[in-house]
């Protein structure tokens, strides 16, 4: 009994329960849900969305917000394809270029926030506009089509069974994130700064460096997500990243992240992404009136978060520790 109550207090328990219930129910109504092809489709969606969510999660961990996640991802995506199409760079070099751009954007965010002392919300609002503007300025809203076959086949290839190659970078990133936040000083510092910036400074942590590192990681993850989207869509759409913002917050928050900072969970965030993906797909599978999709999605987010809250709520007062 103690085991279960302990388990139920972890961040990932609620989302996991919700995921399992959702899978069971949907599978019960529609046999195709767990078909290999459908699992593959789900994994493709999750692969990208998880990176987007992590990109925001790391900033939530330091108690800030990064509104420019989508703009960085979009910029990295079109730089990736643009470099291959216009300059003829080989794909691996173009990937590196895109990631460097992502990190650069992140460092810029972090440095501006740190040097000016202006809230991250305002800075990333401005850089959102700048990054997106550069994207539009370069592309003039036209997609780049010059995606080489190697990238296309990577985007379409399967590793084992229904598991696409695209999921591999995401799995690696997930493990790395978990390791960083659990086992590496830099991850602990990020959480410490998010929990109490003042105390972190007094404990000898360089708050400035930590904030900049967190933003660099965020930029890197957004850039990886951008590159993966290109591999998946097989074109360099300038609009990549435009609708990442809501998802990027929804998943960590469903996963129990505290917006004030200091507490995030990689596993629960991943499950948050899974839940959103399942819901989105279920709405299509059940042929729900397209006009109602948004309503259901909003209600589902509310329900998931509410469930989480209910679980986390403990009796107040005497004896609660």
């Amino acid at each position, binding site marked *: 009994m103690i085991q279960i109550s302990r388990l139920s207090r972890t961040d990932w328990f609620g989302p996991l329960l919700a995921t399992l219930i959702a899978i069971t129910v949907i599978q019960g109504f529609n046999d195709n849900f767990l078909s290999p092809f459908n699992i593959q489709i789900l994994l493709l969606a999750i692969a990208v969305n998880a990176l987007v969510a992590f990109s925001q999660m790391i900033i939530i961990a330091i108690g800030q917000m990064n509104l420019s996640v989508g703009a960085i991802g979009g910029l990295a995506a079109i730089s990736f394809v643009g470099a291959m199409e216009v300059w003829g760079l080989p794909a691996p070099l173009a990937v590196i270029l895109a990631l460097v751009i992502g990190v650069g954007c992140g460092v810029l965010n972090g440095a501006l926030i740190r040097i000016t002392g202006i809230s991250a919300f305002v800075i990333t609002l401005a850089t959102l506009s700048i990054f997106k503007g550069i994207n539009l300025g370069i592309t003039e809203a036209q997609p780049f089509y010059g995606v080489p076959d190697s990238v296309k086949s990577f985007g379409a290839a399967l590793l084992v069974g229904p598991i696409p190659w695209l999921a591999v970078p995401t799995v690696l990133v997930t493990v790395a994130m978990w*390791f960083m936040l659990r*086992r*590496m*000083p*830099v991850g*602990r*510092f990020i*959480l*410490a700064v998010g*929990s*109490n910036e*003042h*105390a*972190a*400074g*007094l*404990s*000898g*942590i*360089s708050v400035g*460096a930590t904030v900049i*590192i967190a933003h660099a990681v965020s930029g890197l993850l957004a850039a990886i997500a951008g590159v993966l989207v290109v591999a998946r869509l097989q074109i360099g759409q300038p609009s990549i990243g435009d609708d990442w913002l809501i998802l990027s917050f929804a998943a960590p928050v469903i996963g129990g992240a505290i917006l004030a900072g*200091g*507490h995030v969970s990689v596993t629960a965030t991943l499950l948050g992404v899974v839940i959103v993906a399942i819901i989105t797909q279920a709405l299509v599978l059940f042929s729900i009136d397209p006009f109602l999709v948004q309503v259901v999605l909003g209600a589902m987010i509310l329900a998931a978060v509410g469930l989480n809250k209910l679980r986390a709520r403990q009796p*107040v*007062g*005497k*004896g*609660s*520790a």
Partner: protein
Amino acid sequence: MSEQKAIFEARGIEKAFPGVMALKGVNMTLMPGSIHALLGENGAGKSTLIKVITGVHLPSAGTLLLDGTETQFSSPRDAIAKGIGVVHQERNLFPRFSVAENIHLEQLAAGYLKPINYSALNEGARPWLEALDLDIDPATPVSELSVARMQLVEIAKALSLQSRVLLLDEPTASLTSSETERLFTILRRLRDGGTSLVFVSHKLEEVQEICDRVTVLRDGANACESRSMDGIGRHDLVQMMIGRAEGAAAWRHRDTTGQPEVLGLSDVSTSLGHKGVNLSVRKGEIVGLYGLVGAGRTELAKAIMGKFKVTAGKVQVNGKAVTIPNVASAIHDHGLGYISEDRKSEGLILQHSVLANAGVPIWRKLAGRFGALRDKRIHDAVLPYLQKLEVKTPSLNQTVANLSGGNQQKISVAKWLAAGVQFLIVDEPSVGIDIKTKAYLHELLRELADAGTAILVISSDMPEMIALADRIVVMDDYHITGEVTNSGVYDDISHAIMGLIHDAEEDSGAVVPLKEISV
């Protein structure tokens, strides 16, 4: 001992903040193998001096010497590396991190990417916990500890640095007497090992017990500089701190038995776990509610105010049974008031002005047609009380956060004076308050009671209780364990009170309920 060379010296330290000169050329010399008291009233500059010494603030002028050579600390990390450790007054732990990790955070900062070995970390933390007789698993998250234990972990963290100079800013504020004794044993051991310790406390008894040298600050300057404690008595210390002799008015007997009851609780239980609480406060009476931290006193106060639910029993105001649905109703409908122990988060709205803070409870009374509020009216209504309490502020538009702790406390009292409530709960009135303000506050509470206000004072400071209360009600573990009528004789009363809670303290040992944490 006098032959030894100073391990650390601060010379002519000045520190200016916008609008304030916090330190005006302060000197302090620290000797190895000594415990050095740093005293002063709130706002005298103790904490600022500590922050300069530990690299949090850069001094505007003056020099710091380590082993006789001039040095500069660019950051707290730099100071730590040079052997200066500190336990700050405010809590600096990360609640979700384990005890071991909190203790070792400084060491981890050496490498950003080197994976953490948690078992080594736990092993490394154990000796320091054992040194403090702390029987906790180093892997426990700090959030699961009691306040007192958090304080001890913080000290363990400082010890683990094995600093040559260790500064402790009010380390005993939330410790029980036995925990304090244990701490002192360790401090003495460190001293004997050659460490130079700086001890800051408002409790002069403790200072006299453990310190051998003393520096006193007054208004950002030295009132006495690094002299031996030999031959200095309590009165001398007080005189140096406040610039004149201590003049606390003594307890006097007041008879209020004939007065009508203002607040009465009979068999009250609350949603927080209070059971069968009986309490009665008469007009003009000061009733003390004594208990240790975690006994459920603040919670009872908040339940009376309508913040938490009363689940059983009867609450009477002026003899009439009432149900108080929320705090607003308690204040506006029943004339009850509550001065929180936690000024910064519950007592005051720090980012608002003095005027706004002092006026909150009377806004409703002063609002005119369409709810219009005029600053002039609020100003006129609160000014007399602010003046009476000698609040020092450049203007009433000053943000409260910029004022000293003592002035903040005065404002949080003044707003209830202005509100003119008939029943006032005062929770830990003298936490973080200097001697002068404390004495003044006591006098004020007596005056208020004489004028007819019923007062419930919550305190875990026995001398304060005995100086103030007419009757003392003792609470332990969410129960009222008994009542003592105050005779003003310290030894008798303290014995009686300790007798009422002694047994309970013995067996509650391990986990103290944790409702009074304020983060």
